[in-house]
């Protein structure tokens, strides 16, 4: 496969995974928690390296998963003990992220990671970091990790679909009929954490938030069915990745930045043009009401 094809595949996998998981964040009004987790997983990655002395994907996933859950847990604890929920997110996220930055700078010589890379990602280098088993070159390791995370996400959503749905829509009812709402919450947070860390290398901590939130927010404007929202969100994720790659090629700009910008552009167009929830639809509806009454 060509160099460009690998980058497109990597970006598309990020788009699908983030797009699907992101829908649930939006429906549960937890977009800011995703922002927090996307930063605190840096601490998870650094700790995973310090413990395992390796930058293998699996250690990163476990480390990020644990710190992601810790973030969600600490936010929950502060929230229920009287701290404002947005302040709780702010406190937990900056503290854990700062700890990650300190550890990273203290062991900078030994860790093949730098803050800039972690924040911005560098999808351009993905194709050269390949997975080799018994001398066989199996393609970029990022693709393997993203593929694994995507399949895991799809399996979890498939099996827990109705539980995730009811605990997102009506947590009180869900609890009353015996669905473990808290378990579902942490399951989703784990999915966000591993999706973030897998996407980290390609788009970085800041832009992964764009990929988590923007496609879902766009899909929300376009449909009234959850399953369709998930599909549209995934498609928009891929479109942003592919469009972003070509835009970056054409103007010689950052690939990850261009992907997030395309996602933002798609959202902007949808926001204006969506027939149901868009500005244009609302103006037309208002006009038709006023002509009926005049």
């Amino acid at each position, binding site marked *: 496969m060509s160099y460009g094809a690998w980058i497109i595949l990597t970006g598309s996998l990020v788009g699908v995974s983030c797009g699907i998981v992101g829908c649930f964040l939006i*429906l549960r009004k937890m977009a800011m928690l995703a922002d927090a987790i996307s930063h605190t997983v840096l601490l998870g990655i650094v700790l995973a390296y310090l413990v395992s002395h390796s930058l293998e994907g699996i250690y990163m996933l476990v480390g990020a998963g644990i710190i992601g859950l810790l973030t969600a847990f600490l936010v929950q604890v502060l929230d229920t003990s009287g701290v404002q929920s947005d302040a709780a997110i702010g406190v937990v996220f900056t503290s854990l992220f700062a700890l990650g930055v300190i550890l990273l700078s203290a062991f900078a010589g030994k860790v093949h990671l730098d803050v800039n890379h972690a924040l911005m990602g560098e999808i351009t280098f993905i194709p050269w970091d390949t997975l080799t088993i018994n001398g066989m070159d199996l393609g970029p390791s990022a693709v393997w990790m993203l593929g694994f995370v995507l399949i895991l996400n799809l399996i979890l959503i498939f*099996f827990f*679909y*109705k*539980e995730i*749905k*009811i605990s*997102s*829509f*009506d947590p*009180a*009812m*869900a*609890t*009353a*009929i*015996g*669905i473990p709402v808290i378990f579902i919450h942490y399951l989703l947070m784990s999915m966000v954490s591993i999706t973030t860390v897998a996407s980290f290398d390609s788009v970085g901590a800041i832009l992964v938030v764009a990929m988590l939130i923007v496609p879902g927010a766009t899909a*929300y404007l376009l*449909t*009234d*069915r*959850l399953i*369709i*929202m998930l599909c549209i969100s995934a498609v928009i994720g891929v479109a942003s990745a592919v469009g972003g790659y070509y835009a970056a090629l054409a103007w010689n700009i950052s690939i990850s930045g261009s992907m997030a910008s395309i996602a933002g552009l798609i959202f902007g167009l949808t926001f204006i043009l969506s027939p149901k929830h868009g500005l244009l639809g609302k103006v037309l509806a208002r006009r038709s009401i006023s002509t009926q009454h005049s």
Partner: protein
Amino acid sequence: MNPVDISNVTVAYDRKPVLQEVTFNVPEGKLIGIVGPNGAGKSTLIKAILGLVPTASGTVRIYGKPYKAQRKLVGYVPQRGSVDWDFPTNALDVVLMGRYGHIGWFKRPGKKDTKIAMQALDKVGMKEYADRQISQLSGGQQQRVFLARALAQDATVYFMDEPFVGVDAATEKAIIALLNELKAQGKTVLVVHHDLQTVKEYFDWTLLLNKRQVALGPTEEVFTIDNLQKTYGGRLAFLDQQVNQPFVQQ
């Protein structure tokens, strides 16, 4: 055995007691109104029974067993305002959620569940709205979807939290017809209610509550001026002593 048997239930939020030592049991096949002023702990009582808020002390029994062992016998209608009606789903889908407790892990609602859900929608006069996105429904229609969901739970005891709030006259009538039908089937229904003027008309039994239990019994026996004054304190006024219609000064 009594459908609902509660003894010494106390609930506190941040050390402030919301319910104190509530003890009662209700007989089978009655429509029971739970009545009391704002902040009397009416919703909290239901939530405590369903395990949605932790109890500081006391025991709850549904047909002699803890709630956790009897979930399938219990139907719940939360307050309409407790959920986000912009959620991307339709009326039928919400009613199907009433089946989730019966379906079990890893399974999807089947044809039988869809049939039950459609029957429930039909009973509340909402069959033709099955495919409608829930944000496109009026307040009364949304309330009826919630009732249909509780019907789909196919329960023996129902708890309803303020089902009459903000609904139109047609919905109010539909709810009353439904309550009477459930009663005719021998089911027990507990309803949090705030309109004192309709208590006598709607409910066989009344539970008067203001953090503590003031009275419980057949409505004609307990729904007295004396008991109402005990429940509402100075906030109660009487429009007309002759017809004995109480109302609450806001």
